[in-house]
C-alpha cells in the first residue's frame, strides 16, 4: 500500500498540470465575459477572418504534410537499402537537423528568403531580377517542410528498416514485379510509420504561429496566430479558448480519420 503513495507527486502533477488546465480551457471557451454559458466563442470560428485563418492553416499544413511524405518515403527506401542500420552515419545525417533549435532553423529560412536575403542577393549578382519570396504562402510551406521533415523521415524509416528482407524475396520468388512488391508488401507494412509521420507533421503544422509569423511576416494569419493574438495582444481569453477548442476538435477528427486509415490498411493485408 505504501508503495502506491510514491505516485502521489505524479498524480498531483497530472491534476494541476494537465486536468485542471484542460478544464480551464473548456471553462473559458464555453463562457462569456459576464460568466454565463455561451457557445458564441465556438461559433466565432464562422466569422470571416477566423474561418479564413482555419482554412489557410488546413490548406498549408496539408500541402506540407503531403510534400514531407513524398520526400520522406523514397528517402526511407533508399536508407533502408543502404543497410547501415538504425545507428548508421547516413541515417544520423538525415535526422540531425531535428535536434537544432526550432527557432534557429526557421530563422535560417528567413535569412535565405528575405528581400535582401541570400537567395535574392545571389540571383541579383548573377544578373537576374530579385524574387518576392518572403511573406508568401510558399515561404510558409517551405518552412513547415523544412522544420518537420525529420519527423516524417524517422517513423517511416523505422518501419521500413524493420521489414524482413526475406518477405520481399519471397514475394519476388512468387513472381511479383517491383511495382507489385511495393504495392502489396512494402506499402501496407509501412502504413503505421506513415500514420505516425503524418500526425507528427500535420498537428504542429496546423497549430503553428511561429513559422507563419517569421516567414509570413504577420500578413498571412493561421489559426495559431489568431489564437496567440487573442492571448497576448487581444486579451480576449474567452474567444481564444473557444477557438482552441475548435482547433482541438479539428485535430481529434483528423487523427480519428488517419487512425481508421491505419486499421483499414492493415486489415487488408492480413
Amino acid at each position: 500500500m505504501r508503495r502506491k503513495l510514491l505516485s502521489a507527486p505524479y498524480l498531483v502533477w497530472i491534476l494541476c498540470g494537465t486536468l485542471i488546465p484542460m478544464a480551464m480551457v473548456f471553462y473559458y471557451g464555453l463562457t462569456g465575459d459576464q460568466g454565463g454559458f455561451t457557445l458564441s466563442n465556438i461559433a466565432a470560428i464562422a466569422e470571416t477572418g477566423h474561418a479564413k485563418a482555419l482554412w489557410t492553416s488546413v490548406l498549408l499544413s496539408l500541402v506540407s504534410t503531403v510534400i514531407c511524405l513524398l520526400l520522406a518515403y523514397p528517402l526511407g527506401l533508399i536508407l533502408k537499402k543502404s543497410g547501415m542500420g538504425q545507428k548508421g552515419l547516413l541515417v544520423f545525417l538525415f535526422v540531425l537537423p531535428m535536434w537544432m533549435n526550432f527557432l534557429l532553423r526557421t530563422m535560417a529560412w528567413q535569412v535565405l528568403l528575405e528581400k535582401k536575403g541570400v537567395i535574392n542577393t545571389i540571383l541579383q549578382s548573377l544578373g537576374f531580377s530579385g524574387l518576392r519570396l518572403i511573406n508568401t504562402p510558399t515561404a510558409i510551406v517551405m518552412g513547415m517542410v523544412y522544420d518537420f521533415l525529420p519527423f516524417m523521415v524517422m517513423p517511416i524509416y523505422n518501419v521500413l528498416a524493420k521489414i524482413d528482407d526475406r518477405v520481399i524475396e519471397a514475394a519476388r520468388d512468387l513472381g511479383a514485379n517491383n511495382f507489385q512488391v511495393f504495392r502489396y508488401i512494402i506499402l501496407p507494412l509501412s502504413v503505421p510509420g506513415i500514420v505516425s509521420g503524418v500526425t507528427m507533421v500535420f498537428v504542429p503544422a496546423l497549430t503553428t504561429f511561429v513559422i507563419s509569423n517569421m516567414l509570413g511576416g504577420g500578413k498571412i494569419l493561421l489559426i495559431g496566430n489568431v489564437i496567440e493574438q487573442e492571448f497576448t495582444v487581444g486579451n480576449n481569453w474567452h474567444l481564444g479558448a473557444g477557438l482552441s477548442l475548435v482547433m482541438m476538435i479539428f485535430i481529434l477528427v483528423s487523427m480519428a480519420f488517419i487512425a481508421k486509415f491505419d486499421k483499414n490498411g492493415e486489415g487488408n493485408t492480413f
Partner: protein
Amino acid sequence: MKKFLEKFYLVLIFIFLYAPILTLIVLSFNESRSMGSWSGFTLKWYAAMLQDETMMEALKNTLVIALVSAVTATLIGTLACVAIQKMKPGTRGVILALNQIPLLNADIVTGIALMLTFLAFGISLNMGTVLFSHITFCIPYVILSVMPKMKQVGGYTYEAALDLGASPAYAFWKVILPEIRPGMVSGFLMAFTMSVDDFIITHFTRGAGINTLSTMIYGQVRVGIRPSIYALSTLVFGTVLILLLIANYLPGYRARKKAREEQMR
C-alpha cells in the same frame, strides 16, 4: 542508372537540410552585416555574442530550466512508475491514458491551458511557472521510457530480495534501480532535449523579462536579425553535433557502457 538516381536524391535532400544551417555558419564569420555578400573573415560576432548579456542570460536560463525540469521529471516519473506497476490494470490504464494528454495535445493548447490556470488562480507568471510547465510536459517522456523497463523487471526478483531479508528501500536500490537505470537515463535525456527545444509553452507561461534561447531569438528576429545570432546558431549546431556524435559513435563508448552495465548486474 538507378544507383545514380538514388545517390542524386540523397544529395538533393542533404542540400535541402543543410544549406540553411551552413548559410548561418558562413554568415557568422562574415565581416559585413549584409546577408548576401562575403566581405572577409572575422570572429567579431562571436565576441559580440559573448558580451551580449541578454544572450548569455538566455543561454543560462535555458540550461538551468532544462536541467531542473529534467531532474525533477525523472524523479517524479520514476517514483510514479514504481507505484503504477503495483496498481490494478484498470487504474494503470487510466493513468497511462492521462499520461498521453500532454504528448498528443498541440503545444499551443498546453501553453494557453497552463497560462489560463496560472492567471485564474492568481499566480503571476515568472520563472516558477515556466519550470512547472516544463516539468509537466517532461514527465510523460520519462514515464514512457521507464515503464517498459519496469515491466521487464517484474515483481519476482524484488519479492525474492524481500524474502531474503532486504528492506523495501534496500531491495529497490539493489534490485530494481540497476535494471531501470537505462530507461531513466534515456527519459532524462529526452526530457532535457524537449525542454531546451521548447518555444511555444515557454512563450505563454514566462513572466516579463525571463528569456530562454528560443523566446529571445523569437523576440529579436522580429525586430531584425543581428549577426551575433548567427554566431549563436553556429555554437548551438556545433554543440548538438558533438553531443550526438559522442553519444552515437565515440569509439569504445558503447562497449564501455555495456561493460559497466554488465558489471552492475
